[in-house]
């Protein structure tokens, strides 16, 4: 009996996720698609995220993730209706924008001429195929991450630096650009300023590298 209990307890310890369950990750809920795959990616890292548009829950979370695929003006309108634009500007904990989430953190998007949150000075523009017309829009597929600036987000990354992209709009280069990707021209792949990080690609769908970026984000020191 006693031996069994010990064995079971040891087993329980072994199967506990390596990251402590107590970490609270808030996933900002707005009218954006593709949130479920972010939730699954976090589950694979042993973290349960809560999808919420409750400002209180977002403010008190240990980490905030701002995911998204969708259209800029309707997303901004949705955030404003719920005062989430203000909440996003005020949060102090590590914050990660993904895809449309990155674009909305910039100052302005060409997509329906939308003023965005202004955390970063970058402008968001639509890809224009070059004169040869070889490139298609949207930019869909795996592309390489280049010109990495040293940052805790980039700790122990694997050698193969490909991320999965799906987007028609991109952020220009500028202050806070941590890494670039080339499609038609160089654009901002990853951003960082203060407690805000943002990734244009989909780390939740980018195999080992994407998983490592998410893991490093979760491991950032709390503020």
């Amino acid at each position: 009996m006693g031996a069994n209990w010990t064995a079971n307890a040891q087993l329980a310890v072994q199967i506990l996720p390596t990251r402590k369950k107590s970490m609270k990750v808030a996933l900002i809920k707005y009218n954006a698609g593709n949130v479920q795959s972010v939730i699954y990616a976090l589950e694979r890292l042993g973290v349960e995220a809560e999808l919420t548009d409750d400002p209180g829950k977002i403010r008190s979370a240990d980490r905030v993730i701002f995911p998204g695929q969708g259209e800029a003006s309707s997303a901004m309108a949705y955030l404003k209706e719920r005062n989430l634009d203000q909440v996003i500007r005020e949060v102090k904990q590590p914050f990660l924008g993904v895809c449309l989430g990155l674009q909305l953190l910039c100052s302005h998007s060409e997509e329906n001429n939308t003023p965005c949150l202004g955390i970063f000075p970058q402008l968001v523009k639509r890809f224009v195929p070059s004169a040869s017309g070889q490139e298609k829009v949207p930019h869909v597929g795996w592309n390489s991450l280049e010109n990495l600036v040293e940052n805790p987000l980039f700790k122990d990354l694997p050698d193969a630096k490909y991320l999965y992209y799906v987007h028609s709009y991109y952020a220009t280069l500028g202050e806070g650009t941590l890494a670039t990707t080339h499609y038609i021209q160089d654009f901002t792949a990853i951003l960082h300023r203060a407690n805000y990080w943002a990734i244009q690609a989909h780390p939740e769908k980018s195999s080992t590298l994407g998983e490592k970026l998410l893991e490093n984000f979760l491991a950032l020191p709390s503020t």
Partner: protein
Amino acid sequence: MLTKRIIPCLDIKDGRTVKGVNFVELRDAGDPVSLAKLYSEQGADELVFLDITATVDKRKTLVDLVTQVAKEVRIPFTVGGGIASIQDVYALLAAGADKISINSAAVQNPQLIDQLAKEFGSQCVVVAIDSRCTAGVDWVHTHGGRKVTALQTKAWAKELADRGAGEILLTSMDHDGTKAGFALELTAAISGALPIPVIASGGAGSMLHFKEVFSSGKADAALAASIFHFKEIGIPELKLYLDKEGVVVRN
């Protein structure tokens, strides 16, 4: 640099992966969840998961199977089969699909493409075309290849792009299952004419066929099933080969 994509396709019937020749004579090819996980770990760039009996049997794609697969894989994942409404798409995205693929429903109701693109964004909407050549003309087929339509493949592909499809999954029924190579001319004609990516499907039998479809076929991605399921070509060796041959792939 943007890489060319290798996409294993899991044709699902009654919860198992199957593969046929020219859309018939189905063979069992294993458990979809373990195959999906294997391909994801081996370096597949995406997965496509098609419930091939869905339209015929008026059955909805098995949402719980989608959930199981989505939990296991760390790469993008497209689900098709029997999708006919915005509600169907919500259910699949909620289960963890990244994109959906429609086929028969797009032919029956082309406005559905506009609606889906508006609701979910073009990036989410893959439209599949099953094409068969008769007397030199490529015709669109539906219902798993059983019904011929009055639509010509090239014109239909153009219309799909105009309506907001994000990608075209182009299957040549003449080549499917033959292992004699992809339909290079048809793929090149459509890929060259459209502003959106084209996934070539049908006919993969050797590593050379993949090189051809990316070079002369101008495909953005290549999809295959049986050669991967029956381990005739491994994804890692295929990618090493393509890299050596000058095709930009993720390795």
